[in-house]
């Protein structure tokens, strides 16, 4: 009875959480900015404001950033492509305005090195685990370890006694573990 109550309660909580989360994230905003403005912002987000310290053209309140946003909007409205606009801006202000480093030449390094080092780290982890887990002839379970353990300085019957006791305690330990 009690367990059922708990289960019902838990289900209710889950539903409540989902019900709370879903509409919260699902608020339909009445007036999204127009597609043009959205695209201006998307492009501006990828460009560094040339006169600011680490702010994007989209976020910077500086005069130049405002002009650059207006420039992007003008050219987009004229039907020009995103690539052409960004290319011209890079020509004028230099490669340093690209917040997303280009995936070419030397700059490829910035993109690939993190993944390479991660792969290297993963390889080290896998190798460590493999060496540790698949040791030829290594005991596979604690019980086997008990059997294989050498007990120096003990008479065989004494060792057998301790082995039995250790095995018994390990069994109890396993049962008692949460």
């Amino acid at each position, binding site marked *: 009875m009690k367990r059922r109550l708990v289960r019902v309660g838990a289900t209710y909580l889950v539903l409540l959480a989902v019900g709370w989360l879903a509409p919260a994230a699902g608020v339909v905003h009445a007036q999204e*900015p127009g597609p043009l403005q959205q695209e201006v912002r998307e492009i501006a*987000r990828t460009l560094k404001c040339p006169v600011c310290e680490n702010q994007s053209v989209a976020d910077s309140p500086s005069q130049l950033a405002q002009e650059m946003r207006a420039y992007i909007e003008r050219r987009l409205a004229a039907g020009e492509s995103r690539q052409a606009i960004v290319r011209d801006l890079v020509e004028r202000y230099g*490669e340093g305005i690209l917040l997303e480093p280009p995936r070419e030449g030397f*700059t490829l390094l910035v993109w690939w090195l*993190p993944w390479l080092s991660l792969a290297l780290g993963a390889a080290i982890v896998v190798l*460590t685990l493999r060496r540790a887990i698949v040791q030829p002839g290594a005991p596979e379970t604690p019980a086997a370890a008990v059997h294989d353990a050498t007990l120096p300085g003990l008479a065989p019957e004494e060792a057998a006694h301790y082995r039995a006791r250790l095995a018994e305690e390990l069994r109890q330990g396993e049962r008692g573990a949460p």
Partner: protein
Amino acid sequence: MTPADGATVALLLAFAVAAYAAVASLLGARHQVPALLVSARNGALVIAALLTLAALALLHALLTHDFSLRYVYEHSSRAMPALARVTSFWGGQQGSLLLWAWGLALLTVLVLARSPLGWGRRGAAPFAPLTAQYAHALAVLLGVQVFFLFILGFVSSPFERLPLTVPDGRGLNPLLMDPGMRLHPPLLLTGYMSFSVPFALSIAALAVGWPARAWLATVRGWMLLAWTIQGCGLLAGAWWAYHVLGWGGYWGWDPVENVALLPWLTATAFLHTIMVQERRGMLQVWTHALAIATFALAIFGTFVVRSGVLTSVHSFAQSPIGPYFFAFLGLVLIGSTALLLHRLPRLRSEGRFDALLSRETSFLLNNLLLVGIAAATFWGTVFPLVSEAVRGVKVAVGAPFYQQVNGPLGVALLMLMGAGPLLAWRYTSLQRLLRLLAAPLAMAVAVGLALGLLGRERGLALLAASACGFVVGAVALEYYRGVRARQRGGQGPLPALTTLVARNRRRYGGYLVHLAMVLIAVGVLGSTHQVERTVTLGPGEAAEVGAYTLRHLGLAGFTVDGAQGVLARLALTDTSGQPLAVLEPDRRVYANWEQQPISGIAIHTTLPWLDDVYVVLVEVGETGRATFHIFVNPLVVCLWAGAWLFLLGTLVAAWPETHAAPQGVRAAPPPREVVASEA
């Protein structure tokens, strides 16, 4: 002689004492000379006293407008209120470094006080010598102190005089005068500084050996302290950026932010691996490596924050403290790596990995991801310098890079956060894991389906949202299982919960921190749905942004704290016309900083959907017209809720335990150090 002259003498004296005491401590431990150990320990006290005097002198100079000091002239002015002049203490490089050194001096005394033979411990003679381990840790801490006092005394002193007397100072950048600035920089500087203690303990353990259990219990507490301070500093920084900078965001992947995140990430990895070392006696080398890396990153961060070196290679060479910091960093890295390699034979693992599905391996994966994020962030932060040095071309590495690289790693980390705690030590069978994972997975699928079907999230963000559901489910399950086990013992649900947490504070406090990370992730995900609009409104006109309407009511002038400003009143209503609040964004100009007007941002969090309506007053026109930059930031408030939960969780986990050590695999009676460090 003014206090400032006295402070210069105090800094030089402290330098000499630190150099002496570091050597005395080392020699005393090597040759077992108690007198040297006692004198080294007293040296630490003297340094703390001298630096306290120096800090008070700087504070005095700032409060009494002693503009004969260059630092006071450059970072404060008569127009600034007293509280703002206190923040000038850490508003510049020299003051920040003094705060660092002063904090380290006090912390060193605290470390000694909490050592087994510390002051006031039962059975400790008032002037008993230190143990060999603590003597070595003290030598390391004093060595770090020597470096900072060298910089403060000889390279970049806050007590440097101006050649002439000036009537007024330049003042602090008004952006830095916000209340958030009273909290965020000192927290980060203290955090950076506190990473010295785990480093010193690590070096001491490598140098003279330290029984593993005692060492772990000691180092865990100090690392947890530094990690908590740094975490709070990072969150306070995000809060400050959001409430003051006015671009509608809280984290810009700015170099200065990135370098503050780095030691926190490696410290997080450290706090997880020591659990493996504690339970299974494994990964010792890796633990030490993490402690060393964390300290090196903290030094790197301290240096970057106050020197602006990351803007260009040239500013790096020009910064007067640059070469010294670089040399110190090199010394730390080479010295400690050599020591670690030298001790490798001693650090053999006691246990070993038994199976792929086990808590140990989940911690390995956790470390891989955390260190991977740290490495990617470090690489992205320094890459502009590398590119400039190699190709002579400056490139920018901005938010898109970090989002694309750290995003997937962060989502993987979230998923691991849910699954890891459900795995048992040594070995978990797949069936058992699947049975445990059923409820959290159901939660993940429910969240994923709900958001996916609504079309609110897709791709990585959807996966991240599901992962959040997964972690919440897993943590709830862990709490539920714990409470139910206690209930079987006849306790009611509430007492069961409190005793459960009280008896296993590290574990259940840790879970609270995990939940805090989920809240922060939810805030981050929500803020990607930001809606933004720039509008110019005459009095009486209204604009719609998202699901909200803002009506411009009018402008008014005001003066505050040496600033003149104008504020706008905006009535906020939802689409049904229900009034929610009146927002008052303002714009002010501070004396000496006329070129840089400051926006006072108005933020209203709506209920029940937790949208932040965030209004910046951009420009004021002639006829009462004003231009506003308006953002609707969904769920950002979850970040701040997460910050408080983070603090609560760490307090639950870190509060010293009074009962016997928790049952480990090897439940040996804890050595003296454990009791001492946790009492």
